[in-house]
């Protein structure tokens, strides 16, 4: 008797159709590989970064991708620690998405350093006062946790299950998943926060600098909170996208609605805190260094006050209000439109905290520093999407990701 490589009781497309579907993603990957070869081979002069933009597109991508991948830790927290059973129907998908996000973020960080072969210095010669050190430690260990969380999902492939040891291993790992999930939550809290601390501690950069609690600037808490709020929305949106592409229902609406409800309230509280933080920064912190609010939003071709309004009102309060109302959640289109807005808002937040921080002139005789990424940066930043498509497609095809799939597709 031969065992099918596909999960039990589900239908999958033909092999040739599958390969055809993956082809564009592999093409992007090929171009990205060439860009990576250029950067690692010839150095960072292959990018459009310069001394004013030591941090640029890649650091933004890191911050955004890690925040969106935060769906893995927060869903894990809900499913395994808070015991919210519904979330278990989407947790496998969240873990895979998190794994893609985190591994890609680390790859981009590896590209971004001038001396990649010295990358290990950050661990060996660690300066524990640096937010980046905290990021590196937590990120790397958490990637390990995600791999550990992903292993039992791989082991559930029917062919692998036939090997008894792997059958037992996946069972035993499921049994103590709460331990791994708890470690993941602990690590995520710190690295999501430290990523916020990266700009927040820069007291030489009044656009980013924030006061805070002990060693942690307010951005530390805001970044963690926003990642926990928007991460699950990203997981849900990508899951919905998978449904649209596969033409199948994979997760019940009530799961989406539950995630949306939790995220909605998280988002609302986050955006209120963010607004208060912005008001304090604009009226106290920045003026103490001689800057008015509008000095950060004028005299340049891109960063107008619109970006602040877009982040806080259109991509903050608006989606939060949609998601906390039952009517908003029950309308699937409205729910995912709100999720998309929230995701855009999070990306804007990460962008301004890194790039606008560096763009704003500090010396009165400086001009705004503007930057546009080189093709090498753009294509490697798109790479996580291609890798995501490949990994999720493979996982969906061969692994039982969605416990509700059989029931929803009889």
């Amino acid at each position, binding site marked *: 008797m031969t065992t099918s490589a596909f999960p039990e009781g589900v239908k999958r497309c033909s092999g040739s159709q599958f390969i055809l579907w993956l082809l564009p993603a592999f093409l992007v990957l090929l171009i990205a590989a060439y860009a990576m070869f250029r950067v690692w081979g010839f150095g960072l002069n292959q990018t459009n970064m310069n001394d004013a933009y030591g941090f640029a597109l890649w650091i933004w991508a890191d911050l955004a991708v890690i925040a969106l991948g935060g769906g893995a830790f927060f869903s894990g927290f809900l499913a395994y620690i808070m015991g919210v059973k519904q979330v278990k129907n989407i947790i496998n998908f969240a873990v895979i998405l998190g794994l893609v996000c985190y591994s890609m973020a680390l790859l981009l960080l590896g590209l971004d350093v001038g001396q990649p072969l010295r990358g290990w210095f950050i*661990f*060996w*010669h*660690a*300066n*524990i*006062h640096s937010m980046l050190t*905290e990021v590196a*430690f937590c990120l790397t*260990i958490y990637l*390990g*946790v995600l791999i*550990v969380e992903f292993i039992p999902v791989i082991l559930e492939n029917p062919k692998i299950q036939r090997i*008894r*040891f792997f059958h*037992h*291993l996946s*069972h*035993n*790992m499921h049994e*103590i998943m709460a*331990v*791994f999930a708890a*470690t993941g939550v*602990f*690590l995520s809290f*710190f690295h999501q926060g430290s990523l916020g601390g990266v700009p927040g501690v820069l007291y030489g950069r009044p656009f980013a600098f924030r006061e805070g609690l002990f060693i942690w600037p307010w951005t530390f808490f805001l970044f963690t909170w926003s990642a926990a709020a928007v991460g699950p929305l990203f997981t849900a949106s990508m899951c919905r996208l998978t449904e649209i592409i596969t033409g199948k229902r994979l997760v019940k609406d009530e799961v989406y609605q539950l995630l949306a409800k939790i995220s909605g309230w998280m988002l609302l509280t986050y955006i209120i805190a963010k607004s208060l933080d912005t008001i304090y920064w604009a009226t106290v912190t920045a003026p103490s260094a001689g800057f008015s609010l509008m000095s950060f939003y004028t005299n340049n071709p891109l960063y107008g006050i619109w970006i602040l309004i877009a982040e806080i009102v259109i991509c903050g309060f608006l989606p939060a209000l949609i998601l906390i109302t039952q009517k908003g959640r029950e309308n699937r289109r409205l729910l995912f439109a709100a999720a998309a807005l929230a995701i855009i808002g999070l990306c804007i937040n990460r962008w301004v905290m890194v790039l606008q921080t560096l763009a704003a002139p500090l010396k009165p005789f400086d001009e705004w520093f503007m930057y546009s990424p080189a093709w090498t940066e753009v294509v490697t930043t798109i790479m996580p999407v291609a890798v995501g498509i490949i990994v999720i497609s493979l996982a969906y095809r061969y692994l039982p990701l969605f416990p509700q799939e059989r029931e929803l597709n009889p």
Partner: protein
Amino acid sequence: MFPFAYEWTWYLGQYLFMGAAGFAISVVGAGLTFCIIKSIIDTVQEDEGSSDHH
């Protein structure tokens, strides 16, 4: 990272940071080791169980 490195300083922050990192690694490592050992035992016991049957 370790006390013999130049940048090591003997103070609380250093212990907390490295302690937390070490703790997280230990928990994950111990959990994984437990699962592997238990799975080996389970597999062996299962084998013995099925051979008893014959």
